């Protein structure tokens, strides 16, 4: 006879989210590769495969279908373990994964067949923007209700990050769904959403999950609570401010530039604080990363976080933003944030917790390889895009690339195109790394050797 009962359906919502997000990662990776190739071969990839259409399709799949869903799944995994109570309404939580994933697919199809309206950051028609905003209220509701019912009053820092993330994302989605005037409002809506998603969702949720994984993977206690607090506050202050820096000297108020530069300084501070906090927690356990893919992914995520924070902050100063504004530099930064920071934090969470959630051991040799490939190829692609942007910026400053006609820009921008072309090649490697992650998840779920499953039990009422 037992004094406790097992929590039924535990982690079902988290596993469902991981599964759905992995499918979208596959779709998003293919579309991202097509997007990169579409810039290099504009005369070959046309119509539904043209750059103009594939770019929002890729962003929709990657941001909505993959990163939003996967990190919500991570939140659902950690919530019962940090609050001491079961996840509120697991059925609704699981349905949310299919809902968000379904809206993501519908968005990709709508954009592909030309139903996009070019409004909002993802170019989706208003009814799909609205559907995304409504669906993102589910994780907010589930999180609030779970926290309200918590029996554990002690707060591990991951909860701060999760709570902040699930609040921020629906607000950003509502911003994206608002009808905007053509002109400055439309442009700002685009860049503000993108920057906010990258900072307040991907990095915030990722860092929160990172603290959790660091403790669970090593058994070490959290090294420094104040670093985590500083890291979160810095992320919240940095927030959306990197957005306007992407369109420098557009007809925005004069005061905006200095405000953007000052507040975006919080981004490298956040990367430093969270990176140090996680690294100190892992402590001496960093050795043997090859055998411990979760820690390897965690280390890679910290490195990506530092690069993104620094690259973003530097480019918000007026002299730098005049050079790289409107260029592929910002695509490189976004690529590193989404596939580097987001991808590696998600991998760290998945590799650490999949066995505990499913009772199946990880297919770990491929996992370590996936982390290494991501470091090289995602890192390489992002940096090449940034270099391409800097060169294009130099070309524009020299008076080229802006006027109309082939002689005035296409010939002079050649070096930028070369680096963009190289980014396509490394993008193929990045795609392989992402495919390997999907394969790891799939193989673990279907043929991983049986191992212990972490079972949550609760006392009878």
């Amino acid at each position, binding site marked *: 006879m037992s004094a406790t009962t097992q929590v039924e359906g535990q982690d079902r919502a988290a596993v469902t989210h991981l599964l759905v997000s992995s499918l979208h990662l596959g779709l998003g990776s293919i579309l991202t590769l097509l997007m990169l190739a579409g810039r290099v071969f504009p005369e070959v990839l046309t119509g539904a495969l043209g750059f103009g259409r594939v770019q929002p399709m890729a962003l929709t799949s990657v941001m909505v279908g993959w990163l939003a869903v996967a990190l919500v799944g991570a939140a659902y995994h950690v919530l019962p373990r940090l609050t001491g109570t079961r996840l509120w309404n697991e059925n609704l939580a699981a349905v949310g994964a299919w809902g968000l994933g379904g809206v993501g697919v519908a968005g990709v199809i709508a954009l592909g067949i030309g139903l996009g309206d070019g409004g909002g950051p993802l170019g989706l028609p208003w009814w799909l923007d609205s559907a995304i905003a409504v669906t993102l209220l589910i994780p907010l509701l589930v999180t609030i209700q779970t926290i309200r019912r918590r029996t554990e009053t002690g707060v591990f820092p991951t909860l701060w990050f999760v709570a902040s993330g699930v609040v*921020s994302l629906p607000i950003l989605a509502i911003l994206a769904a608002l009808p905007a005037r053509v002109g400055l409002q439309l442009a700002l809506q685009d860049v503000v959403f993108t920057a906010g998603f990258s900072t307040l969702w991907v990095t915030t949720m990722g860092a929160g999950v990172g603290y959790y994984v660091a403790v669970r993977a090593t058994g070490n206690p959290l090294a420094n609570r104040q670093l985590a607090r500083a890291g979160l506050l810095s992320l919240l202050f940095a927030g959306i401010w990197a957005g306007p820096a992407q369109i420098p000297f557009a007809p925005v108020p004069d005061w905006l530039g200095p405000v953007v530069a000052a507040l975006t300084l919080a981004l490298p501070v956040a990367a430093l604080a969270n990176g140090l906090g996680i690294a100190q927690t892992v402590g001496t356990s960093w050795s043997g990363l090859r055998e411990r893919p979760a820690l390897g992914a965690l280390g890679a995520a910290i490195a990506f976080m530092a690069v993104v924070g620094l690259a973003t902050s530097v480019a918000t100063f007026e002299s730098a933003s005049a050079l790289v504004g409107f260029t592929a530099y910002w695509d490189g930064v976004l690529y590193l944030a989404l596939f580097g920071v987001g991808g590696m934090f998600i991998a760290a969470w998945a590799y650490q917790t999949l066995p505990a959630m499913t009772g199946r051991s990880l297919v770990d040799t491929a996992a370590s390889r996936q982390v290494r490939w991501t470091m090289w190829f995602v890192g390489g692609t992002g940096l090449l895009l940034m270099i391409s942007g800097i060169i294009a910026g130099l070309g524009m400053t020299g008076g080229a690339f802006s006027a109309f006609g082939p002689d005035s820009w296409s010939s002079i921008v050649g070096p930028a195109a070369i680096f963009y072309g190289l980014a396509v090649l490394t993008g193929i490697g990045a795609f392989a790394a992402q495919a390997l992650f999907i394969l790891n998840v799939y193989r673990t779920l279907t043929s991983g050797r049986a191992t212990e499953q972490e079972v949550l039990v609760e006392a009878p009422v």
Partner: protein
Amino acid sequence: MSEFLASAAAKMGVPEALVRRSAEARAKATGSSTDEVLAAWAGGEAAPAAAPPPAPEPTSAPEPAAETTPEPEPVPAPAAGPTAGTAAAATPETIESVVAAPRPATPPILVGREERLAGTMLGAAALLSVSLLVGFVVASTPEETNLAYTSEYAYSEAALRGQELYRSEGCTACHTQVVRPVVADALLGGVSMSDTNQVIGTRRFAPDLAHIGSRVGTDADLYLVLGGTDGHPPLTGLDQSDLDAVVTYLMESA
């Protein structure tokens, strides 16, 4: 109880409050008394129905043990190995192998200091709302300007339809429609000093089109480019009337 508690806490290097809570959880999970669990931990013996937890590794960091518990927490506590939940997901062979080799699960709950989370959530929402108010709403509110040049264009209905197509076809992925007060844009025409009713865009991978109508000779040049020359992808998805609308929009952007 207090001597067992103190002894167990000293042995694990964990604060007494955490050890007490963990012991209560373990006692509840195993059906034994808290004293028995504490005595086992203090004496280094096996706790009832489960092995004692490993003590957290010592550390010189500021808040060492406060963030982890050495044990399962009050309500959800870990079982020693998989239960029916595992069995449902595994094949008969794997069930047997799992059940044959159980060992204590690691603690599933991480805790920290007691805090209210509502403040964190409200603070995040408030900070983001203020940021959006300042960085989006205020920043994109048109300002009255005394400058002679205006960025507002008097587009015809056909041109406005062309503008919609320009947006939905993703032209903004490569083209901007904004002339900045920088050297790079010196030859592009009047600077966009105030807000505009053109599609500013966020990337310039190809020529700016703010005043394109005044930079091309005739609309024939535009038809040629949109058909797929000069490295421009052909707009294969548009019929003739759509193409006419897009060209009208661009020609009226002069």
